[in-house]
């Protein structure tokens, strides 16, 4: 009886297995499609554009733009030319800016999170208060800083020059060498609450008995931070630093809102540089080529970073 049923039962059981196994993929399908639409397709289009000589003559029908081969890349990497040189300089500025912003934001965020770890009156209020810069829209935050940094009417100079008499003549913050620091201050102000948020969450996972044991052994506060808090936070920090790095390296809103479309050379970040090439000089091909180069650079940095940190974690776990 059983033998007689097998030929008929076999395909249907197979089908059931396929259905059961296929269901997750089916459920994933919308997400995959949207991922393709939102991320992968635009990225591929960008790469395609970077091999085209796409200028104002072709933006209306840009399929007709002539092929450029690697011309756009050669042009972006020609460091003797005006644009290549500027790109290289802005790359240097961006690296400096990113390292400082990530470092300071992490330091501030971690410091504040550690100080907020033990309960005290008003802790909830302060924690919420610290998150305000992160909750503000980027434009609102940056434009407020722009007002404060203005030379004649800004709050910063009113405080430094009129009230504290630190300078004889009012310094410029939005042009010249100080513009880099103005940009850094604004970026750190906007970024550190995120570091604070993530580290605060990470701290909740550290078992309290570790600290109790350390206190019994007579460890001071620094020793506890160094030997318990930081090692325990390592997985959190690994992701946090990477995310902060990627965000700030690509940050466009802050410099664009502070300085407009022509940033001072000292604070010329690479994202604005790419924007200028694309939209001000109407050269979308080279703009895309620069974007692709930026993408490659960030991919390499991310890969190396993950390899290094994972290898270190594995070797320290072993």
């Amino acid at each position, binding site marked *: 009886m059983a033998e007689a049923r097998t030929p008929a039962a076999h395909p249907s059981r197979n089908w059931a297995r396929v259905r059961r196994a296929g269901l997750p993929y089916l459920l994933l399908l919308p997400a995959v499609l949207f991922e393709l639409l939102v991320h992968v397709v635009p*990225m591929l289009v960008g790469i395609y554009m970077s091999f085209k000589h796409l200028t104002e003559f072709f933006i209306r029908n840009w399929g007709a733009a002539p092929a450029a081969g690697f011309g756009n890349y050669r042009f972006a990497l020609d460091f003797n030319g005006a644009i290549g040189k500027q790109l290289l300089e802005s790359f240097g500025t961006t690296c400096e800016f990113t390292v400082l912003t990530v470092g300071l934001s992490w330091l501030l965020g971690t410091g504040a999170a550690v100080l907020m770890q033990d309960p005290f009156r008003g802790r909830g209020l302060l924690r919420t208060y610290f998150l305000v810069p992160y909750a503000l829209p980027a434009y609102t935050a940056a434009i407020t800083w722009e007002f404060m940094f203005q030379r004649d009417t800004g709050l910063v100079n009113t405080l430094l020059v009129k009230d504290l008499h630190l300078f004889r003549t009012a310094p410029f913050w939005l042009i010249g060498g100080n513009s880099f620091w103005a940009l850094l201050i604004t970026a750190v102000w906007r970024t550190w609450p995120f570091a604070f948020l993530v580290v605060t969450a990470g701290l909740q996972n550290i078992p309290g008995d570790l600290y109790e044991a350390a206190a019994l052994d007579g460890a001071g506060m620094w020793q506890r931070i160094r030997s318990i808090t930081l090692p325990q936070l390592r997985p959190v920090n690994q992701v946090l630093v990477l995310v902060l790095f990627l965000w700030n390296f690509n940050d466009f809103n802050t410099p664009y809102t502070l300085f407009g479309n022509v940033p001072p050379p000292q604070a010329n970040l690479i994202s604005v540089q790419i924007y200028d090439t694309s939209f001000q000089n109407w050269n979308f091909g080279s703009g*895309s080529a620069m974007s692709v180069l930026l993408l490659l650079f960030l991919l390499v940095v991310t890969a190396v970073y993950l390899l290094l940190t994972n290898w270190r974690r594995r070797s320290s776990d072993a």
Partner: protein
Amino acid sequence: MRSSRPALLTLAVATALLASACSSSGGSGGSGGSSGSAAGTTLTYWASDQGGSIAQDVKVLTPELDAFTKQTGIKVKLEVIGWNDLLNRILAATSSGQGPDLVNIGNTWSASLQATGAFLPISDDVMKQINGTGRFLPGALAATGAPGQPPVGVPIYSMAYGLYYNKAMFQAAGIAQPPTTWDEFVADGKKLTKSGQWGTSVEAAQTPENAHHAFTFAKQLGGSFYDSSGKPTFDTPQNVAGIKRYVDFMAADKIANPSDAEYSNGTEAVKDFATGKAAMLLWQSADATLAQYGMNPSQYGVAPVPFDAASPSGPNHVDSIVAGINLSVFANTKHKDAALQFMKFMTSQQTQMDLNKAYSSLPSVSDAYGDPAFQTQTVKTLQSVLANSAAPMPAVATESQFETVIGAAVQNLFADAAAGKPVTDASVAAQLDQAQQKLQAGG
């Protein structure tokens, strides 16, 4: 979550691709139909910011648009777009094919936007259809595209640069007449500069203002930024001298406040003049904005912009660009007839009178000058400048890039001047050289 710019950029372009793929299938219609059938359609119109604030523009334009709807039954959806965004919005609309039906453009962009093919060419037939043949001022009509090609818009507001001066401050300093040469301008400026008050104010971080002045100042010395074949020639001694003269107001003559080097939104220099912080201002059709900042027309006079030497002649007799706003129809509009009716309305005698009065600009059609509002001394001065001594900005496809790179170069020089760094012939030439390399790289 913050999004990264390159991703946004590619996303925008990909959207443009999808949109253009969708629209190319069904976008060829839109012609034909009598004017009667246009009633009931809705046009989308992007207006430029002419009134000093977007709210002010909406207030000025809405009654006119209502009158148009009453006349023709065509509704108009208005969006006023600030100057910092307008060109980008037009570019985005061009690449996606999804734009408004009509748009205002700065007339200096005409040749650049003409090269994209985004706008409907105004052929002789179209000109007849909008009742425009022979009515437009020749100078204003010249700034609607490259020579020898059908224009891609019609002028609606015309403007010219003038020297605005504060009468009371001139009197207090014992200056009887407004300066007519730059030597006089600087000498007067020094007399007018004292604590809390500067000889002149400059919008030193605004790209178009810088580019316009660079063009005029260089032109007065015989300089030119393009040769006859359309190749850029930025780094000539005349161009260097012209730009240096402008930047020297801050760098060497010290008649402009170093803080002006931050002025970028296109109103701060005007505000300084209106509020008595500066005695002179080189600006185009500033009355409406000055009134907004509370300055009474009786408090200031308007004279032509000074020259290199007294009463020059020939090609150096230039003291303004042909400034103004054109109205263009997007080539892939689905409501061509309605759009042309709107164009006809906007260039009609009555609308020209109403709008140019409200914006203190000059009508672009000759039959609108009958209104007494255009018989004032200010208007007559600017009208004479526009008719006799204004030169159009270079009508080349790279004009908008030219404005961008030259504007940035002058901005950098002003930043140097503000920081107390010397501005020399060499440093100006270096900036110009870099600007030209960027321009050529873009083309």
